[in-house]
């Protein structure tokens, strides 16, 4: 084999946008000694010497790899001159989409076709950086590690890489591995679970031990892995389904630890199945005719109109994103898209959402625990991952948010949501029929992502990056896009769908996908038929690999050939790997040997259900006294600081990197107003051409309230999500919710107690608002253990997503103020709800008095406001959330380039909320700010009778926010442009 090296350099070193961007980041590290960064792309080609000569390499360089207008090729390598050279190459076996495409294009260019799927010329790619300036080798290494490479997937070189030969996987000699489990002691069982990365507890290991004792044999590694995957928290959500003994200490006495002993006044409750008795129960009791398929498929399905249904799923990909933020986030969105594609008879994805939780991006580097990537770097790479995957898939990313808290430092959260549309008659989950063939479609299988399901079920430590680098997956969006194109054709062709059932091959890989699909029928899989990326995987690895972009279909024998043909026509790999055989057993074959036989009943019904202890004790918190937080001397300055708080500040730098308009159905975009810089409350899509029926998508999330009361945290999240969809024109009577719990480890009874409270709030909220949950997911071990043993638990984080039908999108409104002279109204009551507020957070206070949702009155408020919007009586609506009335006013006005004169005396309030700062900054729930024209004013006021509301003042042409105290004098008269600038700055990472 001969290896050739080609470098592609910018033609003019002055035109090197990548280099300029890297230089800017180096400057942020505080390294002034670098004065320029020159980048180049590196391609390594390998082929038999007879197949590839110098002339052909020259052609590849000039005609294919290099754009002659802006680039110049170098065959071999160029001397780095005075600078320090750093090269970054992917480690062997890591997905390299560019290399794969280049191999195909070279074949095209030189008329050399692939043989047996192996390209004539093999390609690897890398990046080259030359850092000009006087810097030490150590400094260069630091830059490489911090900014240029991620060593969990990439290798750094300080000289040009010219290998003699590409690393090749070698085929392994078959060896059937049995794990002697029957004789192990309890300690040995636990040690086996830990060593094998099975993440099963002792009871579970003993259940497996007893099963194999009864069979009188030991399990193979593949059998043990199958059980570990199928029984992982990630796949079966055993905590949420557990039997729980829940003790609630009513009031904190500030002393001692109540975990173990009951005290007088405690209530003790036995909860048989937490999620069943709260979230599922609400949905089933509400029994809305439009909930079509809930909690049984990859995504929840609700009716949209007579013809179509819509489905939604929100997933988290926290662990992979902590270790490799780009790949973790990209594969998070990728997996969620496949969930939607694999819902019912297959749905077409029409929108994505993304919500992140990070530590403060300004965190000084020296405060980072070892093994942790800097939060700003995580944020930028996560955004890049979502961007590159979502944009390539052609799915608009329309809604999102970011929450900042230092406790996310070792354990960031990355939530990805996908919305899909499908014909109504395909809403139900399909079932494999005995005799159906098992078709694996999409990407090839490699060692990537092994143990993702089990790994996500445990706590991250500072060593995880090394120990679990194989759990990191890199996506290839185009492989998935091609698969999507083919699957939708297989669904819609005459005689289609060509499959009985379809599912994602996600966590747990084939093991989970085939195991679940074959639960009722049994399945036999020929593992040697699975197409591999490279040689060297053993059968157990093939079975549990979480390689991306793969799906599994159950296909009747007569449809196998047509399906394989459709796939081949668009260069999509589809392989018949076995049959759903009606045996009730899972049987795996490899090279003529039986490597696993398990009863489906044991896989799906064998998991023991121990009783877990949960405790809630209200935390001991001090309410801040008035004396500690004096009223601001300068209200405008306080408001400016609030707007510059990262959680509140503008996310435009991120939003504009996502294509939020592809598919041409985004009727309300994430940024609104005449200059596209107002933070919209919800996005609206109009997915069916020719119809005016739409869908509003929004979220609610209040992690900081969870430090005070997880129950109210959850209710506030639900109320916020509903407010957001109502603000744009959503119908609260046709609104579905999704729950995503990210929690610290629930083996701690306190954390489990908090989870119980949050679930109970979900029940109460869903019932009161009439908004059923249709799908949910949990991630319950979000902790980081630092080098020094310090345990950092994330705040209780419940993300509520709301999906609401908009009867007529032409009635939608946005949050930007529209017209001078219009009236400004506030709807909803303001109370002393300062606990957890951003205003108090500015002073470092948490407080105790968390906002409380009044479930008796709130549903009516939402209904009436929604009615006003549907009737076209409201010109602009904005919800009051983080930062309260003041932030909502400022956002509404600067988005519309208008001002307002507002009198706080008109704010309806509780007796304890008379102070100006409370009226402006309290975060009481269920409140709206509405702009109403003079023409509709009387009608609106009549409709609001019976609710708490007040007429605050009027919109003014003069773009200033003028606020009059509820008592005497004026609190501010400030140009809204100052607020806009403060709000735009903190996360504008353009420079």
């Amino acid at each position: 084999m001969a290896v050739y090296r080609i470098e592609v350099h910018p033609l003019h070193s002055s035109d090197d946008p990548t280099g300029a961007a890297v230089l800017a980041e180096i400057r942020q590290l505080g390294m002034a000694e670098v004065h320029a960064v020159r980048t180049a792309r590196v391609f390594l080609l390998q082929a038999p010497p007879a197949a590839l000569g110098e002339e052909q390499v020259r052609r590849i360089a000039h005609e294919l790899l290099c754009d002659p207008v802006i680039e110049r090729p170098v065959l071999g390598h160029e001397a780095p001159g005075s600078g320090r050279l750093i090269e970054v190459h992917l480690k062997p076996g890591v997905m390299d989409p560019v290399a794969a495409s280049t191999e195909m294009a070279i074949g095209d260019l030189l008329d050399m076709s692939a043989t047996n799927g192996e390209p004539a010329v093999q390609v690897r790619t890398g990046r080259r950086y030359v850092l000009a300036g006087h810097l030490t080798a150590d400094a260069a290494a630091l830059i490489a590690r911090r900014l240029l490479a991620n060593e969990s997937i990439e290798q750094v070189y300080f000289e040009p890489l010219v290998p003699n030969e590409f690393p090749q996987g070698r085929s392994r000699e078959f060896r059937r591995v049995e794990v002697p489990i029957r004789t192990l002691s309890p300690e040995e069982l636990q040690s086996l679970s830990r060593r094998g990365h099975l993440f099963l507890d002792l009871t579970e290991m003993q259940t497996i031990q007893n099963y194999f004792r009864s069979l009188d044999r030991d399990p193979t590694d593949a059998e043990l892995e199958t059980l570990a995957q199928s029984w992982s928290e990630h796949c079966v959500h055993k905590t949420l389904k557990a039997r729980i003994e829940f003790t609630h200490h009513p009031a904190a006495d500030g002393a001692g630890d109540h975990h173990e002993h009951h005290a007088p006044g405690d209530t003790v409750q036995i909860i048989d199945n937490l999620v069943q008795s709260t979230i599922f129960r609400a949905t089933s009791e509400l029994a809305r005719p439009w909930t079509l398929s809930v909690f049984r498929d990859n995504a929840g399905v609700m009716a949209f109109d007579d013809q179509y249904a819509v489905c939604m799923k929100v997933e988290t990909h926290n662990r992979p994103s902590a270790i490799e933020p780009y790949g973790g986030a990209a594969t998070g969105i990728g997996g969620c898209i496949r969930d939607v594609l694999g819902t019912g008879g297959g749905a077409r994805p029409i929108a994505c959402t993304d919500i992140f939780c990070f530590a403060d991006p300004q965190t000084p580097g020296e405060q980072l625990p070892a093994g942790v990537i800097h939060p700003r770097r995580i944020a930028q790479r996560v955004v890049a991952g979502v961007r590159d995957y979502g944009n390539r898939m052609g799915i608009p990313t329309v809604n999102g948010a970011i929450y900042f808290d230092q406790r996310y430092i070792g354990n960031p959260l990355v939530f990805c949501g996908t919305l899909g549309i499908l014909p109504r008659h395909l809403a139900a989950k399909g079932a494999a029929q005995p005799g159906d063939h098992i078709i694996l479609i999409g990407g090839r299988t490699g060692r990537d992502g092994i143990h993702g399901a089990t790994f996500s079920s445990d706590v991250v430590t500072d060593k995880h990056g090394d120990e679990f680098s194989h759990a990191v997956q890199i996506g290839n969006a185009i492989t998935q896009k091609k698969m999507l194109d083919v699957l939708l054709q297989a669904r819609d062709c005459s005689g289609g769908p060509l499959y009985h059932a379809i599912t994602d091959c996600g966590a747990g890989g084939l093991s989970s996908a085939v195991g679940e699909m074959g639960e009722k029928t049994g399945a036999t899989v020929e593992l040697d038929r699975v197409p591999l990326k490279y040689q060297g995987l053993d059968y157990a690895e093939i079975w549990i690999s979480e390689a991306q972009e793969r799906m599994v279909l159950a296909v009747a024998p007569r449809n196998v050939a047509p399906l394989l043909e459709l796939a081949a026509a668009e260069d999509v790999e589809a392989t018949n790997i076995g049959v759903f055989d009606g045996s009730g057993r899972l049987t795996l074959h490899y090279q003529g040997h039986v490597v696993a036989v398990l009863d489906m009943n044991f896989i799906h019904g064998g998991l023991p259900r121990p009783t877990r202890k949960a405790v809630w004790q209200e935390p001991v918190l001090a309410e801040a006294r008035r004396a500690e937080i004096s009223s601001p001397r300068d209200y405008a300055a306080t408001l400016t600081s609030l707007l510059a708080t990262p959680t509140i500040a503008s996310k435009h730098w991120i939003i504009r990197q996502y294509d939020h308009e592809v598919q041409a159905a985004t009727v309300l975009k994430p940024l609104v107003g005449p200059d596209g810089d107002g933070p919209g409350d919800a996005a609206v899509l109009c997915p069916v051409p020719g119809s005016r029926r739409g869908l509003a998508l929004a979220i609610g999330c209040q992690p900081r309230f969870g430090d005070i009361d997880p129950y109210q945290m959850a209710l506030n999240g639900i109320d916020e999500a509903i407010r957001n969809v109502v603000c744009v024109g959503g119908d609260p009577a046709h609104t579905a919710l999704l729950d995503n719990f990210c929690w610290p480890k629930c083996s701690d009874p306190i954390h489990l107690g908090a989870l119980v409270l949050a679930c109970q709030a979900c029940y109460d909220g869903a019932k009161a608002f009439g908004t059923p949950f249709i799908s949910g997911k949990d991630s319950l071990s979000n902790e980081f253990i630092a080098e020094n043993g310090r345990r950092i638990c994330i705040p209780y984080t419940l993300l509520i997503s709301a999906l609401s039908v908009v009867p007529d999108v032409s009635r939608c409104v946005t949050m930007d103020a529209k017209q001078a002279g219009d009236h400004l109204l506030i709807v909803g009551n303001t109370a002393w709800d300062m606990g957890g507020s951003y205003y108090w957070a500015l002073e470092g206070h948490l407080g105790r008095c968390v906002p409380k949702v009044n479930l008796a009155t709130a549903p009516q408020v939402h209904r009436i406001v929604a009615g006003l919007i549907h009737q076209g009586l409201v010109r602009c609506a904005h919800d009051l959330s983080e930062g309260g009335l003041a932030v909502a006013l400022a956002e509404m006005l600067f988005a519309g380039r208008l001002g307002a004169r507002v009198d706080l005396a008109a704010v309806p309030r509780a007796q304890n909320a008379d102070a100006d700062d409370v009226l402006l900054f309290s975060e009481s729930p269920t409140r709206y700010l509405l702009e109403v024209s003079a023409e509709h004013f009387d009608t609106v006021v009549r409709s609001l009778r019976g609710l708490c509301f007040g007429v605050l003042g009027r919109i003014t042409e003069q773009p200033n926010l003028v606020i009059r105290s509820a008592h005497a004098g004026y609190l501010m008269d400030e140009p809204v442009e100052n607020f806009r600038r403060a709000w735009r700055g903190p996360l504008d990472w353009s420079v």
Partner: protein
Amino acid sequence: MESSNVRVLVLRSAGTNCDRELVLAFQKAGAEVVALHINRLMANPGQLADYQILAIPGGFSYGDDIASGKILANQLLRHLRDPLRRWVQDGKLIIGICNGFQALVKAGLLPGPMPQLSPDDLFTATLAPNSHARFEDRWVRLASQSNICKWIPAGRSLYLPIAHGEGRFLVRRPEVLAALRSNDQIVLQYVTADGMPAAEFPDNPNGSAAAIAGICDITGRVLGLMPHPERFTDSLVHPFWSRCARAPSPDGMEFFLHAVHFVRGGMAVTMKT
């Protein structure tokens, strides 16, 4: 009703993702539309005879690996060069939007042969990474100004979305720009609020030379543009329609209506001869 059917071929490839809305846009303009995978066209280029308009939609063909549109361009060059040359000679139309524009430029079909340059001098322009090195989604103001382009008349002010990471139009040598100007090949420019060619971000969203957002070949029949007209064929996708007194007119439709109209007229002439 129109008597002659205008038939449009929307060309798909791995990673195309704006094909559905492009099909709809041409249908709204009254055309018959077929979306075809490039594999099927390469297998049988003779199918081109059934169509009068070829449209290459936006997306990330082959992931935009190597460079945006490059691999698709390579396929067009290797497998469809002669049929496409004949297509243009026959008076038929081509539009490349966003990734389609990138592919047409990298295949040498745009700006195409120019009398000022040698006939082999085909790779004279490119669409480079945006000057701020990021993907950018935003709406831009545009002015149309070519009198030869069959897709859009001169003198229109348009408002359309862009969404790309590599849209910075650059030429290889200054005389290419001069030739584009003198041949009237500059079809669309990014403009400021007062209608002047935009030099600065965000009005010029990617740093394009001479604020160029779209160009045609010397026949005026092959158009490439970075903005997405197919995304604005309904008033309600305008970014602030809810504050407009009247429903904003969907500027994107202009391109599809003009092309269909041109083909109808053109075909009538062809049939007489």
